[in-house]
């Protein structure tokens, strides 16, 4: 009998509860967190933030976690090992429980992509805080952007001025600014908010520029990782031990190959300044001249990424 969403949700939440009892800092993020925050999304997989230092403990816990009697396994050959070194470098480890009719997918991050503050500092129950979730939703997928704005409004309603940083919808920004002034410290973090003056026609163009820039930054980030993972993926694919039924063996095989072939931190290796400049250059191809004049300084949006 297929596993229901409610059972799946309970399974993930109990995993987080057990992890925390063992001292593992972790939190559910992305789609499931959005449902909890009042922006419903149909999702079935679970994205989990985990403090990189606790990667070993979490692996131990996963090794014991059964779903309909099935243990999990590493998903595919591209999956980096669940190890502090690679988690700190921005990699995601993927796991699956695939009992017949009861599949569960778990993606584990050590670093929240685009995070500008430590996610561990603002948990809400089983979930990462809405500020972190909103930053993680600034992806190259068009469907994610309304969720960002919706979370931004939620933050303002909760009295958190950082909500201003997440309003990407023109109408919402204008309507919000009609009753509320944007604090100077938010404008400093996000210059486009300085265009909220009445009659300012550049705001809409600048918002499109911002979204296109984030879109390109995410696309390039993924491309850098995809390029870096290739030799490792080929080695894991060739190694029969990678498919051993024991999770511990699957892990050791991946660590063995990763130590030789998988760069710990491909983004730092590529250069963050270079990545940002490339994203700006790419974005410039798709937006009006001047649209990128109000971009934020995103060098602070790589928090947690190892040096």
């Amino acid at each position, binding site marked *: 009998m*297929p596993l*229901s*969403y*409610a059972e799946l*949700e309970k399974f993930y939440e109990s995993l987080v509860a057990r992890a925390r009892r063992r001292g593992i800092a972790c939190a559910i993020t992305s789609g499931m967190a959005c*449902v*909890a*925050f*009042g*922006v*419903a999304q*149909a*999702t*079935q*997989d679970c*994205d989990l933030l985990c403090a990189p230092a606790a990667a070993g403990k979490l692996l131990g816990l996963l090794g014991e976690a059964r779903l309909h009697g099935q243990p999990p396994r590493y*998903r*595919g050959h*591209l*999956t*980096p090992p669940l190890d502090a070194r690679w988690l700190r470098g921005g*990699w*995601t480890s*993927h796991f*699956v429980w695939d009992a017949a009719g009861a*599949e569960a*997918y778990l*993606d584990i*991050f050590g670093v929240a*992509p685009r995070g500008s503050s430590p996610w561990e500092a*603002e948990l*809400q129950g089983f979930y990462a*805080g809405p500020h972190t979730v909103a930053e993680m939703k600034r*992806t*190259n*997928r068009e469907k994610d952007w*309304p969720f960002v*704005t*919706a979370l931004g*409004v*939620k*933050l*303002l*309603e*909760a*009295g*958190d001025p950082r909500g201003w940083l997440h309003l990407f919808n023109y*109408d*919402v920004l204008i*309507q*919000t600014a009609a*009753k*509320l002034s944007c604090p100077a410290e938010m404008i400093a973090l996000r210059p486009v908010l300085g265009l909220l003056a009445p009659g300012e026609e550049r705001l809409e163009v600048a918002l499109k520029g911002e979204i296109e820039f984030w879109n390109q930054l*995410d696309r390039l*980030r*993924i491309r850098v*990782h*995809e390029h870096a*993972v290739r030799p490792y*993926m080929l080695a894991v694919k060739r190694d029969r031990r990678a498919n051993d039924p024991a999770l511990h063996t699957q892990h050791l095989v991946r660590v063995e190959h990763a130590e030789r072939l998988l760069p710990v931190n491909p983004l730092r290796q590529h250069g963050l300044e270079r990545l940002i400049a490339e994203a700006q250059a790419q974005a410039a191809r798709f937006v009006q001249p001047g649209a990128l004049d109000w971009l934020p300084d995103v060098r602070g949006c790589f928090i947690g990424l190892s040096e």
Partner: protein
Amino acid sequence: MKAAKAKPAWLTPGVLRHLKRVEHDFHVRAFGEEMARVNFLPLAQRRRYVAEMVDHAVRKGVKFDKPALGVTP
């Protein structure tokens, strides 16, 4: 959603009412009337609705898993 700190002075009842209106209008525009309704349901009902929606989709063969690329958007 709980506020991290005490309610700031700028968050007057009038501002909050205004934000709620802006939010509701946006949810209708961005997600459609049905999902906007769901988004303003109490958490337990919202989760139940999402559960039914996902379970129905799964029964119809929809796959929700993302590719495992070692990096996630």
